[in-house]
């Protein structure tokens, strides 16, 4: 067969397929359409969502035999008006009032923007543009790509962007409260007020560890974790390194910093150099003691282990992000009799550090190190303010859990159930300040029904006797 014959055969196959597809879309429409399609702009968003609602098709409602003909609903949309002017994909675009779905709407020509299964009567279109008007239609779908006639919404609706999300009002209140507390404490600290931060053993032990190394005539080893400088734990580790370097300069101890990232090495060098300069010991600074080993996790671990075994440091600091190497490093340093101080926010590695090291900064302590070491009023005030925020959050958590538990246990207690609803929907959810009246009514009805059923139950009377 020549090329002409081949082309003919392919053309024939395509023609058959198109004919079959058209046939399927144009299948006999026996499904009843949904009714009362309404569309509204979703409030408190940036104008990217529309909520489409409808009443279920009669075919869904009337089905009693279990052989359901209706599978779901398909939602269609056309742009009625863009923000810039009139635009339509409808056939008649002479004016806005004539824009709409054509009477002979071909289901095969326009893909639905979404579909839902039967039982659901609403759909959120999350792919609209703010300022654009849309007209929606819904069709019931059945087996074999059959559709009911389109049920078109009464009017086009424009997606609106709101500057304030009223549903997140509680978020604003909490944020303002915590911010006020932080600002208040910063102000208080700046005016000379005393802000007490509890002693952090791991940071207090820095001088002890460096002192030990000095007395024993051995170096101090600082490991800044295995992640890069863009990780917050590495940054916190470098803050502690500044303090360790300062103490090492005071005591004239040798400080060694092997790194796993080149940028960390550069940062560490600058930090240590600044610390030595600050202590008036630029002569004691040796940049060769801060060096890069490798990016590879276990290559780096092996390298640091080698340093430990060969140079026998008397003090080891692990400050940064650590993974599986944490215990390997800590156990090696323990075996050479070094004082070890660790600090990380990796929850999975903390138990290893606590068990194997002399002192461990856990999570928040590690991040508080900067404020603790610098004694800077702004940082201390911020730290204290954040603590208050955490206390507020913990208090709300306790109150919320208590109320939720009581509301579930005592289901006729209206106050408890409404409080639970309020916490869930308003404080933690998106309902804003005012509780949803519909849901309150549902609760009231539920409680009334519960009380009614209780009143109809026969009284126990204290037993047979």
């Amino acid at each position, binding site marked *: 067969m020549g090329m002409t014959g081949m082309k003919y055969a392919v053309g024939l196959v395509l023609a058959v397929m198109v004919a079959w597809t058209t046939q399927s879309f144009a299948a006999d429409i026996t499904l009843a359409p949904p009714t009362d399609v309404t569309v509204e702009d979703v409030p408190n968003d940036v104008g990217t969502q529309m909520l489409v609602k409808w009443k279920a098709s009669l075919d869904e409602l009337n089905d009693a035999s279990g052989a359901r003909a209706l599978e779901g609903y398909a939602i269609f949309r056309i742009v009625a008006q863009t923000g810039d002017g009139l635009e339509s994909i409808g056939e008649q675009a002479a004016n806005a009032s004539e824009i709409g779905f054509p009477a002979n709407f071909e289901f095969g020509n326009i893909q639905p923007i979404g579909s839902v299964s039967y039982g659901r009567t609403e759909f959120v279109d999350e792919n609209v543009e703010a300022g654009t008007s849309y007209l929606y239609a819904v069709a019931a779908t059945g087996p074999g790509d059959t559709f009911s006639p389109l049920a078109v919404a009464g009017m086009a609706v424009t997606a609106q962007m709101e500057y304030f999300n009223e549903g997140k009002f509680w978020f604003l209140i909490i944020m303002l409260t915590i911010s006020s507390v932080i600002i208040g404490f910063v102000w208080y600290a700046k005016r000379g007020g005393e802000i007490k931060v509890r002693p952090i053993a791991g940071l207090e032990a820095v001088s*002890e560890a460096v002192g030990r190394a000095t007395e024993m005539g051995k170096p101090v080893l600082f490991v800044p974790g295995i992640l890069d400088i863009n990780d917050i734990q590495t940054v916190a580790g470098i803050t502690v390194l500044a303090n360790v370097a300062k103490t090492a300069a005071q005591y004239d101890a040798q400080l060694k910093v092997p790194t796993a990232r080149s940028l960390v090495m550069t940062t560490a060098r600058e930090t240590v150099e600044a610390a030595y300069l600050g202590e008036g010991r630029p002569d004691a600074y040796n940049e060769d003691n801060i060096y890069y080993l490798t990016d590879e996790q276990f290559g780096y671990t092996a390298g640091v282990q080698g340093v430990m075994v060969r140079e026998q440091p008397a003090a080891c600091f692990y400050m940064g992000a650590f993974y599986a190497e944490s215990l390997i490093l800590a156990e090696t340093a323990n075996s050479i009799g070094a004082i070890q101080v660790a600090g990380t926010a990796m929850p999975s590695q903390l138990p290893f550090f606590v068990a194997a090291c002399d002192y461990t900064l856990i999570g928040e302590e590690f991040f508080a190190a900067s404020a603790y070491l610098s004694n800077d009023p702004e940082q201390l005030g911020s730290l204290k303010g954040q603590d208050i925020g955490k206390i507020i959050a913990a208090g709300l958590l306790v109150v919320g859990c208590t109320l939720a538990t009581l509301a579930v246990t005592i289901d006729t207690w209206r106050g408890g159930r409404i409080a639970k609803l309020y916490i869930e929907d308003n404080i933690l959810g998106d309902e804003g300040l005012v509780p949803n009246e519909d849901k309150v009514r549902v609760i009231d009805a539920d409680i009334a029904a519960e009380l009614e059923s209780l009143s109809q139950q026969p009284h126990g009377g204290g037993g047979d006797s």
Partner: protein
Amino acid sequence: MSQIDPEQIKVILATDCGSTTTKAILIEYIDGEYRQTQRGEAPTTVEKPFANVTAGVLNSVSEIGELAGRRLVDDDGHIISPATDSEGCDIYISTSSAGGGLQMMVAGVIAEMTAASAKRAALGAGSIVMDVIAANDGRRPHDQIQRIRDLRPDMILISGGTDGGTTDKVVQIAELVAPAKPQPRFGSSYEMPIIYAGNKEARDAISSVFNEEGFDLQIVDNLRPVLERENLGPARDKIHDIFLEHVMAQAPGYEQLMDWTGAPIMPTPGAVGDILQTVARLQGINVVGVDIGGATTDVFSVFDETFNRTVSANLGMSYSISNVCAEATMPNVLRWVPFDMDERELRNHVKNKMIRPTTIPQTREALMFEQAVAREALRLAYKQHKEFATTLKGVQQQRTVGDTFSQQTGGMTIVDNMKLNLLVASGGVLSHAPRMHQTAMLLIDAFEPEGVTMLAKDSIFMMPHLGVLASVHPKAAEQVFERDCLVYLGTCVCAKGTPKPGKICFKYELSGDCTESGEIGGGELKLIEMGMDDRATITLTPARGIDLGAGPGKKLEREVRGGTVGLILDGRGRPLVLPEDRAACQKTVQGWLDSLDVYAEEKEPVAV
């Protein structure tokens, strides 16, 4: 000095040559036990015109001889030894703090580690530590050299580095001392004794640094061979040896005195420390002793057989009284006074006391004020002591996962008032208070003992004599300490915690020589009469959160003894908190003083 068989010692003569007074006591073996029988005192004669310490010694000994009807000094002016039935003594021993005592400078690599250990060794040996030089003391080398040059210590103790540890830093410290060429206090031909107790690998280097005229280098074992352990004994012994061989030998008359003594002369505070250690060891108890003087306050403690001594150089009741008021602040002093006082008048009183140290209070108000100052001086001295008496720093810690939220650093204080069994007071303001109740109240307010604690005072400041005696005859020293040295004031039972005013703090029930039961309310003090020889078993049931020694809220049963004051039950809680409001504070303090009958109306202050 020949070794004497302790069993042959029946008559003991002991003197303590203080800066102003030489005190002598006679101890005799009577009815199967050693008792202190006589005491005498005479002015110390180190200064001109006598310029011979033995003159004062002989004067005080002669006084004893007359009182005891025993001839102790022969016609040639020598102490008669050995003893017969009517004359002489079997052994003569002495301590000395004349001429300012033993003054030392210590040095180490790290201030909190080897330098702290060196300071402990020096203080424990009874010296006054003039300064501590360390690599991290924040001073520049030229400042350190200037400081060493300005000081005129009797000797210098250098430590630093563990065995096998740093050599460079220790040599650097030595190289600060050598060019400074510190001059000793006594004698122009005297070579400055240097005790080296550091890294053994640095000995050669240290020897070469001090290999020049003017230094007498003595090398002893490292006082911190590893950071986990202190080895203070060799350094302390060497300090004692040098004190005798060099320092005492330079002081007028001491060479002769050393010939008379049957045991090495000890620095007075060192001897006090020794007797407290001996008693603590023999009785298995924890002891705190305090000696408050005019210029300084010494605090000694023995907790779990670990001895510590501190000298608070600027806390005293005459020369240093102004500093006490400045450091404690006047409001803190006045909180112990239950009436209004004119602050201007008080300041005049303080300055008068400073320039006329021998004056004594003439009115009840003046006595109360002076004792208020004493409370603050003792409180501050004890606070300094707690900060110094710590566990070792730079030591590895062993942890478990359970320690996640309760990690503690090294260097925590070992002074635990709940574990304290005996609190001993000495020094004029405590020993010579008009009423023993005042001494007891001063001790309780200043030291804030917790749980069950015995209170005692050194009757005639006999502890230094007994300290030396303990080195030759520990049994005799302990017997005299127990029977004659200490005047037991009684026992105090103090609640730790925050009792609520008006609510029950603890219940008590006494059985034995004294039978009584009752309740102590929050903020309440109560005195129960118990004689010197009375013993009783007390059963204590504390309220929730209150600890009397067995843990918060836990019942406790203990043996208690009486004394010249009795049994004091203290429900004020610990730490002791006084009301901020002046009127409320006065009322509260007055209530406490009335409870213990501290300033009884019929007892006017008497000369001390």
